[in-house]
């Protein structure tokens, strides 16, 4: 039991001390600086007021943000129990590695391709593959009614703070962990099979250099009250914080838009891209009529199960009715 608490505390504190986490203190600091500069630039008031606007204290103490904190604390314990039972990336990597052996029938690891090219290729490949997997999983979470019930926990946030990035139903969190294991395992297995010891990753502070740039460029502002938007041509390639705010909007015209994590090209290709609207005041949440009581833990954790059960029951009943109708028609 003591080991559990030690690990729990270690996992929790690493959220802010581990540079592989979005909430790493360095990234939060970068986001704060960007927010302060942006606020100062936009505001007509003095520096103190601009800084206060940038930090947005009222948001951090809102009912929605307090629900974020509780979810993070509880979910950490749930992940600690269930994550070891999930498919691991090393298992996936080994399966891919062995599968390629069998499929290709040969392996020639002697290559003339220079190491820097292989490392660059791996760094880029895993970033793009991971970003696409995030986009597509996100899309499915919105479009499949059962999965939407679980993803609603994230979208029920009415105030966005950087910690909202971890406001997730545990079922969704476990699905994300499996997605990550598959993406990383496939990439590792594939590249190590082809290039063996030459495979490596360009990193800064132990993070993929591309993700590092994304993080220091204010990734945490995606979940914040600071709506920074980019030029339209850039918003076709990279999702701006303001575009992600559109994704969290309660306005019907904004529903099911901007699923992308870093790149906007996936949304552009799948026709779900929506540019930022600097003049629009956006309200966050699932609907305009969302009640404060929906920030309660019972709703956030259990309503997804109850609603999913209803969906399954209705779907099964519909299928059964169709089947019986067909049988009756055959008998006639």
């Amino acid at each position: 039991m003591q080991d559990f608490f030690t690990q729990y505390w270690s996992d929790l504190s690493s959220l802010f001390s581990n540079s592989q986490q979005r909430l790493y203190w360095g990234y939060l600091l970068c986001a704060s600086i960007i927010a302060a500069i942006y606020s100062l630039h936009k505001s007509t008031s003095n520096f103190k007021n601009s800084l206060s606007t940038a930090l947005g204290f009222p948001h951090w103490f809102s009912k929605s943000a307090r629900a974020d904190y509780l979810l993070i604390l509880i979910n950490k314990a749930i992940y600690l129990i269930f994550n070891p039972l999930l498919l691991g990336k090393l298992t996936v990597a080994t399966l891919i590695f062995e599968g390629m052996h069998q499929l290709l029938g040969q392996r020639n690891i002697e290559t003339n391709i220079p190491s820097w090219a292989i490392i660059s290729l791996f760094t880029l490949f895993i970033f793009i593959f991971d970003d696409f997997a995030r986009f597509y999983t996100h899309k499915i979470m919105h479009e499949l009614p059962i999965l939407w019930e679980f993803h609603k926990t994230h979208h029920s946030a009415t105030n966005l703070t950087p910690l909202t990035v971890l406001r997730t139903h545990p079922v969704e969190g476990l699905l994300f962990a499996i997605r990550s294991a598959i993406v990383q395992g496939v990439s590792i297995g594939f590249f190590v099979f082809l290039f063996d010891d030459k495979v490596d990753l360009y990193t800064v502070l132990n993070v993929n250099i591309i993700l590092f740039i994304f993080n220091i460029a204010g990734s945490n502002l995606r979940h914040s009250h600071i709506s920074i938007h980019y030029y339209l041509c850039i918003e076709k390639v990279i999702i701006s914080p303001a575009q992600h705010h559109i994704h969290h909007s309660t306005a019907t015209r904004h529903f099911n838009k901007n699923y992308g994590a870093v790149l906007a090209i996936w949304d552009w290709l799948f026709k779900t891209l929506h540019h930022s609207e600097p003049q629009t005041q956006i309200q966050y949440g699932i609907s305009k009529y969302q009640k404060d009581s929906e920030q309660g833990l019972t709703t956030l954790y259990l309503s997804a199960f109850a609603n999913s059960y209803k969906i399954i029951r209705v779907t099964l009943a519909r299928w059964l009715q169709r089947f019986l109708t067909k049988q009756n028609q055959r008998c006639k």
Partner: protein
Amino acid sequence: MKFNKLMAAVAIATLSTTALTANAAANYADFPITVKDYAGDKTSSISYGGQIARHVLHTSLMSLSKTGNGEANPELLAKMQAYFSGKDTGRAIISPASKEGFGIAQTQVDELSKGKNLAGKTYQGAVAGWPGNKTAVEVLEFLIEKAASSDAGFDYINGMDYPQLISKFAMGAIFYNQAVDNYLDEKLAADVKPNNKPYKDGAAYTGKEHVWDEAFGYFGAPTNAASIDATDAYSIAKGKKEIFAKADLNGNGKIELDTEMLFAHAYYAAGADKSGKSNYLNSITQAFIDGRQIITDAKGEKLNDEQRKDLLEKANFIKTNWELVIAEAAFKYAGSVYSDALKLQAGIEANSDVKADFKNYIHHWGELKGFSMALQTGGKDLGGFAVKLNRLIGFSPVLLGNTQVTGIDDKGNYIQSSSLSLNEFALHMLKVQKALSDQYPLKARAKDQTAKLATMAEKLGSGNSTEND
């Protein structure tokens, strides 16, 4: 579960080793005589000359097995048999032999001990990893016979490197088996070879002292192996003249084979330890020294319960780690066979000359096969793990026509059948490494072919897996 048990055994034994080190000798040497009423003129109770004699019988037999000319050679066969099962006097030590800058003190087996052979101390059980349902003695006799008519130890038609097969299997079936399944096992029982009596009438050592010495002798380490650097130890076994001054412990200008040379698994322990990831040679030798000190401290009396418990802990540590040394070697050669098989296949596809690659491939397979069979001679049932190992490694490597040895006919000829491709066999080698690392808490993991997968998995981390966008 097995992993946990092994780790627990290693941890307990390491802790007790540390606790006892304060009183223990630095070298496995100069333990005093504790036999009551000893009347002889010896001053030390250490004695394991018979074991070192068997080490040089083994190394000499291995050297002889490389000298065939590809035709039936009764003279060579008889000579090899003399080193395996003979007990005659006058057998020269063929290896290790003196060379420039690295002189060896002994030149005759009898200088170490008289009337010794290998066959009489070979594992009695059947060997599942070799065709023909043979005992270990029968397997070694079969391999010796084949080696005598081989082409410098090689049979290119059936993919056999006899010196490797003989040597690596003999090390397990004789030295490892005798030590872990006899001297460190039943001979440590309270009433077997008790410590309050001389080993035999007039001996300068007690029953338990000699039993322990014999186990140490089979390990094959020099007396200072508890503190020797692994790279230095490896160089001594290779007979490198640069290391001679360090190796010549008594400063007599020659290497004494019984106290200053590495043999068998002590050499492979040093090989693993060179990586800096393991410490088998030092720690196993230290456990031998500590165990010997426990027996010496009993001062010629029967060991009491606490002393016996401490001694058994040392024995358990030695057995566990000795097994790991063999498993590390098997792991390494499975990795070598994997690379060799891929290289060979690439060479065949490129239509290049693959003779040297093929030779390397069967050489490494011979080492792997020998070590894997050796692992199964420790007197414990390895169950499904042993079955898996034997099936994956096969009775021969996959040969160039995608065939493999599957049996032996009644005239002793190999039977080949169609089998896997080289690529599939390479994949088997990955499975051998996986099976070994699942079974044992390996540390050195030389030539780990899937290490890069684990390294990259570690490097990528799992930081952003639960982020929600």
